[in-house]
C-alpha cells in the first residue's frame, strides 16, 4: 500500500455551501490584544518545528502561517472511549509555551470540557458546523459500534454512527485520536461485543489522520493540529494514516536500551540483576521492535520519562490490535534464549546486529503488529487444527 502524500486544503474539500463570512481577526491580531507578541509565536513555532522533526529554519514560516491563520474551529466527538485521550491532551500544568495551541483553536463541542449540556450543546455543534462549513476539524476519540444498528452507544438520542456521519459531512479533515478511534482499540478487542470499528472504516471521503496510542502522546496531537493550522495541509502519513513525524520510527530504533539489545544483554524478570542494570526488556515482553511511536524521543509528561525508562517494556499501544497479542509480558518471540534470532532472522553478531535487527523490525512493520507477533509466536493448538 502506498503512503498517503501530503495534501493541501484546496483540492481536498469542496464544501457544498460556504457561507459568506465577515472578516475575523487573525490569530496574530487576536493574541496581540492579550499581550502575546510575535516572538511568542516564533518560540511556539521553534518548539513545533522541533517536535514535528522539521528543520529549525521552518520555524519562521510556521510562525507566519499561525499568525495569519484564523482560530480553527474544532468539534470533538467522544464515542466508545475512556476520556484518557482528553486527559492526555489537556494535562493539567502551569500555562506554558506548549499550551499556546489551545489559544489557536476554538473548541466548539467537547462533552467533557464544554459548559453547555443537553440541547444547548447540540445546538453549539450545529452552529459551529454551519459557520465553518468546509473548514472545521472533527477530532474523534473512541470507536463506533455498528452491531445491532449501533444501539450500544448513543448520544443526544442518536447513534454514534449517525452523529459521526452528520458532523463530518462538511469537515475539512478528521483526526482520530487514540487507538480506539484509529484502530478499534479496547472496544474492538476480542470478542468485540459491540461490533466496534475505527473511524477510517466509516469515513472514506475525507482525510482521516490517525494519532494512535493509548493514550496518544499530547505533542503528537497538538503538533498535528499546529501543522494543519500553519500549512493548511495534511502532514505526510504512513500506511496506517499516522503522521510520519511522530510514527516514522520504531520505539526500538530510538530506545536508549538498544546497546544492551545489540550485546544480547536482557532482563529475564523485573527484579533480576539485568533489570537493575537497565538491560533490554525484550524478554519481559517489550513490543518496542514492532511499535511505531515517538515515546523514546518526545517521552511523556513534558519529557520526563517513558515506560521503558521507567523499567517497563513497551505494550505496543499505538499499533492495531495490541490488546489481542496474547499478553503484555510475553516476548514477541518465544524462541528460547535467542531473541536476536527472531529479530535478525538468522544468527547475527557484532556490528551487523544493529543493521540486521533494524532491517528485520522494519520488514515486520509491513505486517500488522498482530501478524508480526503471530509470525514470532508458535501457533496455539487451535490454530494448528
Amino acid at each position, binding site marked *: 500500500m502506498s503512503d498517503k502524500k501530503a495534501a493541501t486544503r484546496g483540492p481536498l474539500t469542496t464544501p457544498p455551501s460556504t457561507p459568506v463570512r465577515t472578516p475575523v481577526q487573525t490569530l*496574530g491580531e487576536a493574541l*496581540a*490584544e*492579550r*499581550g*502575546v*507578541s*510575535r*516572538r*511568542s509565536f*516564533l*518560540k*511556539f513555532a*521553534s*518548539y513545533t*518545528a*522541533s517536535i514535528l*522533526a522539521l*528543520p*529549525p*529554519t521552518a*520555524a*519562521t514560516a510556521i510562525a507566519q502561517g499561525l*499568525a495569519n491563520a484564523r482560530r480553527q474551529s474544532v468539534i470533538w466527538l467522544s464515542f466508545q472511549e475512556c476520556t484518557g485521550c482528553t486527559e492526555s491532551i489537556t494535562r493539567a*500544568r*502551569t*500555562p*506554558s*509555551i*506548549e*499550551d*499556546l495551541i489551545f489559544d489557536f483553536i476554538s473548541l466548539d463541542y467537547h462533552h467533557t470540557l464544554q459548559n453547555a449540556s443537553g440541547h444547548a450543546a447540540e445546538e453549539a455543534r450545529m452552529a459551529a458546523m454551519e459557520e465553518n462549513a468546509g473548514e472545521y476539524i472533527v477530532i474523534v476519540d473512541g470507536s463506533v459500534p455498528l452491531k445491532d444498528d449501533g444501539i450500544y452507544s448513543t448520544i443526544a438520542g442518536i447513534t454514534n454512527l449517525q452523529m459521526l456521519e452528520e458532523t463530518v459531512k462538511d469537515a475539512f479533515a478528521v483526526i482520530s485520536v487514540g487507538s480506539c478511534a484509529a484502530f478499534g482499540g479496547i472496544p474492538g478487542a476480542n470478542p468485540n461485543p459491540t461490533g466496534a470499528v475505527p473511524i477510517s472504516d466509516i469515513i472514506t471521503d475525507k482525510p482521516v489522520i490517525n494519532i494512535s496510542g493509548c493514550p496518544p502522546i499530547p505533542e503528537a496531537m497538538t503538533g498535528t493540529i499546529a501543522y494543519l493550522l500553519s500549512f493548511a495541509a495534511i502532514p505526510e502519513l504512513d500506511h496506517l494514516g499516522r503522521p510520519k513525524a511522530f510514527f516514522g520510527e520504531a520505539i526500538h530504533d*530510538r530506545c*536508549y536500551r538498544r546497546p544492551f539489545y545489540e550485546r544480547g544483554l536482557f532482563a529475564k524478570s523485573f527484579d533480576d540483576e539485568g533489570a537493575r542494570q*537497565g538491560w533490554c526488556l525484550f524478554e519481559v515482553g517489550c513490543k518496542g521492535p514492532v511499535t511505531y511511536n515517538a515515546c523514546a*524521543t518526545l*517521552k511523556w509528561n*513534558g*519529557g*520526563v*520519562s517513558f515506560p521503558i*525508562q521507567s523499567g517497563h517494556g513497551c505494550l505496543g499501544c499505538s499499533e492495531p490490535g495490541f490488546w489481542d497479542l496474547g499478553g503484555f509480558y510475553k516476548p514477541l518471540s518465544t524462541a528460547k534464549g535467542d531473541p536476536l534470532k527472531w529479530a535478525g532472522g538468522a544468527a547475527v553478531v557484532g556490528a551487523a546486529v544493529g543493521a540486521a535487527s533494524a532491517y528485520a523490525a522494519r520488514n515486520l512493520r509491513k505486517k500488522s503488529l498482530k501478524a508480526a507477533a503471530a509470525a514470532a509466536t508458535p501457533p496455539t493448538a487451535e490454530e494448528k487444527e
Partner: protein
Amino acid sequence: MPRDARATCLDATVTGMALSVLAEVGRLLEALAASGQPGAIDLRSLPLTDADREQLEELLGRGEVQAELELTGRSEVWETAYPGAWWIRHRGAGDRIAAEEIAVCSVPDILLAHPDDIRAAARRLQHDLTTQQAPSAPEAGATNVETPHV
C-alpha cells in the same frame, strides 16, 4: 547549567556527539561567511546525553551577546565564542527545555522586533501619550493592548 529533567543512566556518558555537532556548526559558519546563507541545528532531535550537551556548551563557549527573554516562559539566547553561531534555549512547562537549537546567522529572528509588533507599539505609545496629555479624551480606535510586550 540547569539540567533537563530527563534523567537516564546514560546522562553522564560522553558519546562524542558534541564533536559531530561542532563540525556541523563549522560547516554552517563557512556557508554563512561565503554566501550569507543562514542555518540551524535542532539539538532536541539529536541523541545528546546531558554530558554531551554540557561538553558542546563548553566547546562553543560564550561570546559578547547574551539575552534573556520572557515569552510565555523563559528563553535564553547567547552568541557563542564563534560570532554568527548562537545558542537558543526555549523553556516550557516546569522550566524544562522545550526547544533548543544552534542558529547560524547574523542575528536570530527571535531577537528582532516583528514589524506587526512595531506597528502595534507605535499605536500604543501614541495612545499612552494622548491619554497622558488629555486623560479624559482617549483616542478613538486606539489599541486595547495593556500589557507591554517583552
